[in-house]
């Protein structure tokens, strides 16, 4: 079954929309729901996750020749945990308020399935260049996913976007949008829209 492996560019483009981690793979749901009540925490989470994803993919790809099959998950997890700890300490040092706002969700990046899935699917099998492209593409996809949800939740819930007021002060602010139920509602509706759009595109191309 000698199938051509995807190139770095293909991995990169796939990660943005066709294999979007939030809307197509439905991975990393925990931060997607937890930190999207505002654009600022959401984008900080995307930056931290991107840092870990890129570093973990590159490192795993660099040592892919040394991995033993029955110990590879252990190596992935250790690598991811190390980079998440570095990201957490960097946030605490340089973005202290955001670090406090994100709280336990930064250490929880360790169990974000997107990262270990990319290590398993791509980084442990392909070169560093491809792994890098894959990580960047998936990060952009993750960012798009979180940005769409955070935009809806922040504008409807607080009338702001990135902290700036975009709706008139008379906007009552839908409290539910800032709370977990609003996250589930928004994600569910946007997932439905994403699926509908992709089916429409599928029909249009046949």
């Amino acid at each position, binding site marked *: 079954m000698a199938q051509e492996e995807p190139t770095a560019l293909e991995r990169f483009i796939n990660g943005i929309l066709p294999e979007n981690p939030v809307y197509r793979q439905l991975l990393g749901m925990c931060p997607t729901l*937890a930190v999207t009540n505002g654009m600022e925490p959401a984008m900080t989470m995307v930056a931290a996750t991107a840092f870990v994803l890129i570093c973990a993919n590159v490192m795993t790809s660099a*040592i892919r020749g*040394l*991995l*033993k*099959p*029955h*110990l590879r998950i*252990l*190596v992935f997890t*250790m*690598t991811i*945990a*190390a980079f998440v*700890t*570095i990201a957490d*300490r*960097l946030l*605490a*040092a*340089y973005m*202290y308020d955001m670090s*406090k706002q994100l*709280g*336990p969700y930064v*250490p929880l990046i360790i169990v974000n399935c997107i990262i270990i899935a990319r290590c398993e699917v791509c980084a442990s099998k392909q070169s560093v260049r491809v792994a890098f492209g894959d990580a960047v593409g998936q990060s952009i996809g993750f960012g798009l996913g979180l940005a769409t949800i955070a935009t809806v939740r922040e504008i409807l819930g607080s009338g702001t976007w990135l902290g700036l007021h975009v709706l008139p002060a008379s906007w009552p602010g839908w409290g539910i949008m800032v709370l*977990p139920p609003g996250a589930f509602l928004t994600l569910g509706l946007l997932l439905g829209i994403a699926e509908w759009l992709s089916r429409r595109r599928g029909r249009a191309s046949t």
Partner: protein
Amino acid sequence: MSEAPKGGGYIRDAWLVIALALVFGGGLAGVQTALSGRIAENKQQETYSVIPDLVEGADAGGTVELVVKGKDGKDARVYKVMGTDGAHRGWVVPARGQGFADRVEILVGLDAELATITGLYVLDQKETPGLGDYITSEGFRDRFRGRPADAPVVIVKGEPKAENEVKALTGATISSESVAGIVNEALANLREPILTQSGAG
């Protein structure tokens, strides 16, 4: 694929894991060393900005840092809080300990005679979101205001009857008890040393 390796085979198989553990451990130690200064500074800034909430009539600019040797023999940093009129208004004592999930760091505000708790602030916690992390809420922290500082705070599930009782958070008893435990330990360790070593009363 599932044959057990002979002799020292397990260690040989896991050499990469062991090597990575050492490399990552060293790397993380380096990162921690490099950044711990800045992180401590950030916490310090946060402490100073919160002091006016913890002690009545405080002037944040007039806070004096003191090092006091606690009953456990270790040096502890405490803050002597002065008012805008220069009078001694109270103390702020940093305290830390094990919470339900991870370490919890708090600031305890006390009056000048160290007789009453005047406020509580949670600097750092990683308790369960939606349950344990309510220890940061004003509602929970306010329950500590007015409690005597010379008797241990006791967490109760019903309505508090005695002066030193504080109502637990619903669904977060262990987090509540951890905070009370941290407060009690810090006060037991530092209350008398502060009174004697600073010459204040």
